[in-house]
């Protein structure tokens, strides 16, 4: 899972889905997610998956990245239903398809909508400490990942992580130890900044959006129709 890569896709992409308003995408994604989960038969799940793929194809070439991301829950779903493949293959198939379409919904949303906008939506329903931590975790991630990459680069240039898996994992542990030490210093610096800048209530994102356009209404209508059809199909 490469948060940095996902972030770049979302921030720098120029596709119809990128152009849609975040709340419209979030609403459409919620409906598609519900449709995917509500499907109870392989055919309904398959129909939902097809609808989700059609939706995701609006992100053009990014579809393949989202599809790759969606393989991860497929892998886990496969693991969970491994024992049922013989006794109830249809059940197993349904679960795997559902894992793929729900994964693709999430992956499409996150690769076409900057984290910031999604967090802003989440922060409306979570306590301040949680949403602030969410925003700051995201910032910290991008500061710390540079550090981790530098350290791994240094390890490589300085002779490698060592011979054998055991030694390599030990070196990784050491490298993480370094990052953890630095992150503790960073925590201290962030604390100072928050105090002097007057942190008291909560961190907010006040991005302003143009009024919704036809694309936004179209997305929502499409997703709602899919949900309705899947519910009707059973």
């Amino acid at each position: 899972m490469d948060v940095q890569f996902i972030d770049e896709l979302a921030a720098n992409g120029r596709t119809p889905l990128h152009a849609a308003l975040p709340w419209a995408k979030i609403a459409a994604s919620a409906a598609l997610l519900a449709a995917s989960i509500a499907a109870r038969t392989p055919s309904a799940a398959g129909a939902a998956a097809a609808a989700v793929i059609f939706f995701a194809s609006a992100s053009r070439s990014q579809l393949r990245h989202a599809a790759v991301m969606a393989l991860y829950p497929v892998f886990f779903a496969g693991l969970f239903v491994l024992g049922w493949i013989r006794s109830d293959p249809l059940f197993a198939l349904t679960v795997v398809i559902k894992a793929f379409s729900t994964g693709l919904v999430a992956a499409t949303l996150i690769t076409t909508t900057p984290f910031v906008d999604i967090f802003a939506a989440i922060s409306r329903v979570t306590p301040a400490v949680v949403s602030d931590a969410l925003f700051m975790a995201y910032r910290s991630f991008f500061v710390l990942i540079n550090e981790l990459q530098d350290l791994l680069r240094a390890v490589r240039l300085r002779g490698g992580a060592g011979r054998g898996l055991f030694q390599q994992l030990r070196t990784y542990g050491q490298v993480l130890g370094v990052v953890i030490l630095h992150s503790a210093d960073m925590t201290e610096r962030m604390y100072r900044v928050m105090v002097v800048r007057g942190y008291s209530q909560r961190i907010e994102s006040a991005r302003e959006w143009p009024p919704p356009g036809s694309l936004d209404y179209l997305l929502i209508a499409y997703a709602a129709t899919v949900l309705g059809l899947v519910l009707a199909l059973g």
Partner: protein
Amino acid sequence: MDNAIPIDQGEIIAQVNCLKHVYPDQTAVDLCGLDFTVRRGQRVAVLGANGSGKSTLIFHLLGLLSPVDGQVTVFGVNPAKRFRDIRHRVGVLLQNVDDQIIGPTVWDDVTFTPRALGWPRSQVEARGNAICDRLGISHLKTRIPHYLSGGEKRKVALAGALVTEPELLIMDEPFTGLDPRSRSELVRLMNQIHLEYGVTYVVSTHEIDFVPHIADWVYVLGGRHGITLSGTPEQVFSQPEALRAVSIDLPALAELFEVLHKKGWDVTVPLTVDQAVIELERCKLDAVAPTPPRES
């Protein structure tokens, strides 16, 4: 760039007297030499090598540390106890710019403090827009901070510090991590802000070369007694031995003129290239003029 208005008098807005601090690991910092005073309208530089106590001084001014001994006063209050009361009057730019941007987007960050202080929305908008325009970052407003360059991040952080139109701006090593062009740009901005908003500022730095361009009053930290020198940049730079004693080397220009002076040239230490040219031309004229060169 040198709009220096040396002010030795005027309202004192910050003062530190014989400060002593002990960190949890028992490192003691003693800033008990000269008094540290900031007067309204001054541009004050705190110059010192790493570890000389610059950050300790800054942190006390901001109420982030509480002294073991000595007194700190900013706008008449003890910042360690009542920084809240003076927060809107003090803008802050800390050392590591990456840790300083809290807001998820540039605009969220720039307007962080006024929103935290509960200002009305219209005022937040007006101030935010004004400062973004002023610092030339309006086009970055909707951007996500981690895609900005180092120089852009600095400007965003500066905008966030200035958005409340503070009377006092405190900057801890603002040049760290910037390349020479971004540094010159920052120097220009600092002076522009000083002129336009009349803001008083205190800036800590180890980059002696910038001091003439950013300060009309300098405190030099180092040695056993903390604050060892103070004065205008001219006054401070004319004491190379005292500076070297606290591990600060003169800028190349000042060093050149110090050598020339020792060799008997009748020159005073210049702060800028322009001044240096004037000094040298005068010397050369003296040399060719009928009056004998004043060899000492």
